[in-house]
């Protein structure tokens, strides 16, 4: 029997801000190639959990391992593609073309004075093509629609050839039709490229049945289960702390 290597391993994670306990005793593991989602109510600590994983916040206690290495010693950040919340909200006049934004995904790999190598160029072109933004290459990022910008940000993350892609609240500033296309794209990346996906949402309506793991976060990691188990009234009631009735419908 072959086991997939773990990309993220979180043990007994606690995070407090002043007197407020934001996250307590969180344990989770994400394996290579998994397609995962974190759901929970607003203010439940979902984004904080991601910021802790990405080293943007320091845990009060507990351990985080990235690709089997303790986070403090981890240096291969290009293996993790990160698209934060509201990243698609760009100032309309910011002087950055789509090509320049996607190229940023290669910067950490180029080093000091590193000029764009043929490998960089092909990674940039490939990720733009994957996300369908090649035709927009010379447009200013601030002149695009919310959905187009979202795809450019994912292309930037993909340019570094990550093993895992983390997307925080991808629906911010994006219309409903673009949201569905966006989740389809994430699924394709997971299935065809084998990139593990971890996305955050507070919208249970976007949870598909082919998700490997669902993490319910509301101060603590309440549940970690499959979509079928999650979409039961008792699970939802436990997560949101109020009686819930699940009504399913087809998109």
């Amino acid at each position, binding site marked *: 029997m072959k086991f997939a290597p773990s990309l993220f391993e979180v043990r007994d994670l606690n995070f407090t801000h002043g007197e407020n306990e934001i996250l307590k005793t969180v344990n989770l593991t994400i394996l290579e190639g998994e397609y995962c989602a974190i759901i929970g109510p607003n203010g439940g600590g979902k984004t904080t959990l991601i910021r802790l994983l990405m080293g943007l916040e320091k845990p009060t206690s507990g351990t985080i391992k990235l690709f089997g290495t303790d986070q403090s010693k981890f240096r291969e950040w290009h293996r993790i593609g990160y698209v934060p919340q509201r990243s698609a909200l760009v100032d309309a006049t910011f002087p950055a073309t789509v090509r320049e934004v996607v190229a940023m995904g290669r910067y950490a790999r180029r080093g000091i004075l590193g000029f764009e190598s043929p490998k960089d160029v092909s990674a940039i072109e490939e990720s733009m093509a994957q996300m369908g933004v090649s035709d927009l290459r010379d447009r200013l990022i601030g002149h695009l629609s919310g959905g187009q910008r979202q795809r450019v940000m994912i292309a930037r993350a993909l340019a*570094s050839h990550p093993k895992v892609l983390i997307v925080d609240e991808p629906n911010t500033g994006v219309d409903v039709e673009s949201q569905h296309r966006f989740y389809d794209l994430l699924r394709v990346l997971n299935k065809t490229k084998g990139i593990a996906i971890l996305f955050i949402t507070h919208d249970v309506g976007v949870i598909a049945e082919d998700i490997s793991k669902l993490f319910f976060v509301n101060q603590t990691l309440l549940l970690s289960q499959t979509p079928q188990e999650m979409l039961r009234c008792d699970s939802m009631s436990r997560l949101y702390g109020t009686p819930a009735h699940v009504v399913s419908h087809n998109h």
Partner: protein
Amino acid sequence: MLEMLNYPFMQRAFIAGLMIALLAAMSGSFIVLRRYSLLSETLAHVSLVGVSVGILFGLSPLWMAVVASLIASWLIEYLRSVHGMYSDSVLAIFLSGSLALAIVIVSLSGSFNASLFSYLFGSILSVSNDDLIIMGLFGSLSMALLILFFKELYFIAFDEEVARTSGIRVSLLNFMLVSIIAVIIALSIRVVGTLLIGALMVIPPVAAIRFGMGFFSTTLLSIAIALVCVVAGLSLSFFFSLPSGAAIVLCLLVAFIFAMVVNKR
């Protein structure tokens, strides 16, 4: 018109002015995009403290300006990044505080003399050979660092958080950028003056951004605007006996208005 270049003081003013234009426009792009434009104005006021100390104690005002500006830039960045203070509040404190300190030191020296006036508004007569050597040394170092870390600084200006998570040493580069800006401002005071250097850093990038191009093209245009305006400003200063800093800033304003008119949106 080119006869002005027969005068050694004008040759020195042009060399210094073009060097400053190049450095100010390039570094200015980063601070403008980070909504940190007042940093240049604040450090210019701080460098006035260094100049005052230099005049009071008979030390090199230029060196003193470099030291004062560097120390203030580190303090500002420390308060902003480590203590999480609002950038504009920190800058406001340093701006008014340093001006107050400079005025007190000048009062102690007994007079508000002509030498200080030239530091406030710039003077083409004041650039010495020693100044050029100091400017060449620090200017080259600053330019080398800006070129070496150009792409990282751009990434940070666009999205500091993602730059950090992609492995770029954001805190270190932020300190480096404010240090470079502090040095450029201190070096600029001979030609542009402490009260006007902020314009040379901010107006060229702001005017260039109006043309709606990518970052690389915007930076090149910004540098071109700064170079043309410095040449025009120094020439006006020579022919009409105007303070060089004021003449340069007026040329920059014309360039900005032109950019606004051409790119109406």
